[in-house]
């Protein structure tokens, strides 16, 4: 049983990004970069399956610039066995990433591919579903629990208003939601060990994939900011104010 985990390098969730004054995009400058939180959950789940003796190998893959290697090292330090960096300097849309991943899957033949449900930079929530479509595989999205059986995977999904359980044939795609697990911190010895783990380098062209964007970016703007209102001194004053606005009767 081999597991492939796709990860993305994103601006750390604690960093407040700035919109470039000329509207051409977002200035991430020297912002702290991290492994996308949902992908971190994906790596953790794969490593746990390996530790439980259910998986034999965990491979991590990422599409992005050279610095993505650091992100992959983080995943290796958490316990993944080896990494594949598909190097591309410019932004690759989810459809392009899914096409690259399809070729990686064809070469690697994993039984399960785990992805985060959403990257916290472009907030698209697409790549896992798109990869499933391109491969003709089932998809267990927004997973809060997975249960591996011989020939199928049971996935408890976060749904509107509750949880939904589905059974998927194998091989399959899983995308992670918050409650799937709590990722570990990599220990110092494991960080040192990760430096020696293999990391292959490829390009989209090596896989014959065209990753040219399909969306033209017209402009990027600051959001409209809400103005702070007034402070009230008591619950009764709050109720009076809310009644004045008509928000409550």
């Amino acid at each position, binding site marked *: 049983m081999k597991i492939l985990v796709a990860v993305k390098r994103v601006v750390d969730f604690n960093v407040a990004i700035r919109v470039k004054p000329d509207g051409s995009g977002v200035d991430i400058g020297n912002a702290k970069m991290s492994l996308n939180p949902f992908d971190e959950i994906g790596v953790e789940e794969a490593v746990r399956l390996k530790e439980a003796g259910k998986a034999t190998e965990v491979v991590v893959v990422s599409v992005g610039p050279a610095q993505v290697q650091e992100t992959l090292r983080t995943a290796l330090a958490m316990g993944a066995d080896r990494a594949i960096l598909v190097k591309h300097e410019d932004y690759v849309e989810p459809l392009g990433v899914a096409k690259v991943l399809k070729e990686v899957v064809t070469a690697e033949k994993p039984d399960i591919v785990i992805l985060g449900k959403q990257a916290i930079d472009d907030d698209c929530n697409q790549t896992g579903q798109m990869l499933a479509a391109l491969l003709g595989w089932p998809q267990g999205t927004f997973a809060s629990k997975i249960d591996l059986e011989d020939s199928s995977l049971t996935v408890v999904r976060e749904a509107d208003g509750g949880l939904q*359980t589905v059974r998927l044939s194998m091989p399959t795609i899983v995308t992670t939601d918050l409650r799937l697990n709590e990722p570990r911190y990599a220990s110092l010895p494991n960080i040192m060990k990760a430096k020696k783990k293999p990391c292959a380098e490829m390009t989209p062209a090596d896989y014959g994939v065209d990753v040219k964007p399909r969306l033209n970016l*017209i402009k990027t703007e600051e959001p409209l900011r809400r103005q702070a*209102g007034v402070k009230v001194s008591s619950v009764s004053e709050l109720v009076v104010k809310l009644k004045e606005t008509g928000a409550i009767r």
Partner: protein
Amino acid sequence: MTVLLIAEHDNESLKEATHKALSAAAKLGGDIHVLVAGYRATAAAGHAAKLTGVTRVLHIDVAELERPLAEPMAANIVALAADYDHIVAPATNNGKNYMPRVAAMLDVMQVSEVSDVKAADTFVRLIYAGYAVQTVQATDAKKVITVGIASFPPARETGNAVVERKEAVADPGLSSYVGETISRSDLPELTSAKVVISGGRGMQSGDNFKMLEAVARKLNAAVGASRAAVDAGFVPNDYQVGQTGKVVAPDLYIAVGISGAIQHLAGMKDSKIIAAINNDQDAPIFQVADFGLVADLFEALPELEKAL
């Protein structure tokens, strides 16, 4: 030009998310057809026929579609796609699940959770948890779009469209439904409630959410939570309001014990009125609140319940 809008429904009636996505679809221009794919869903199809501005309802009725699993849903939508320039669905949990699958099957880059429609090919959407707003032009011949439902008003029901039965395509047989645990509540649903009261880490325990529920009952409000409260295990994930949870825009949003991280603000900043109760006077939530009360929530909440 024709738009296919995928309805969100429970086989009996449409969910309001459909009405809101229709308002976005109407801004594209052109005829609008609605797909009601379900099982024993004649009532839902009839409901869709009443939507203002819809000229045709396509009704697919088959047992495998009783619940909208992504694999058969996407297969059925793709089978209809040739006749349409735009395929649109609300960015509900279901829409987020099957629409990117549809997009990839059609070799289209989806535009996710649009907050405005500028032209038939040009859309506005939030990135970085709402820190930035992007306008993008889709160059694919077909457009596949999910609609951020908090950004659009619900369409009305003054129509009388034709309902046409369509045959389902074969289920790809990759997935099956096992069961569900629905959080049953007598309170309104989070994304459609006029009033939402949410708790954060300051609530300290899941048990304390009962205090919020008591206030919610007085206001006929839905109860939500910040990611911190979900992470701490106080409440289930489907309570989560924010970047990676639900986006809401009620008439009144009351944030209790929520500091106001940008990821949370992304999910509620379009609310008409925001009230905040927090014991930290410097909490960022007060920078977006119309009315802020610096107080201990454990004293303020019972008082608020009594005052309503």
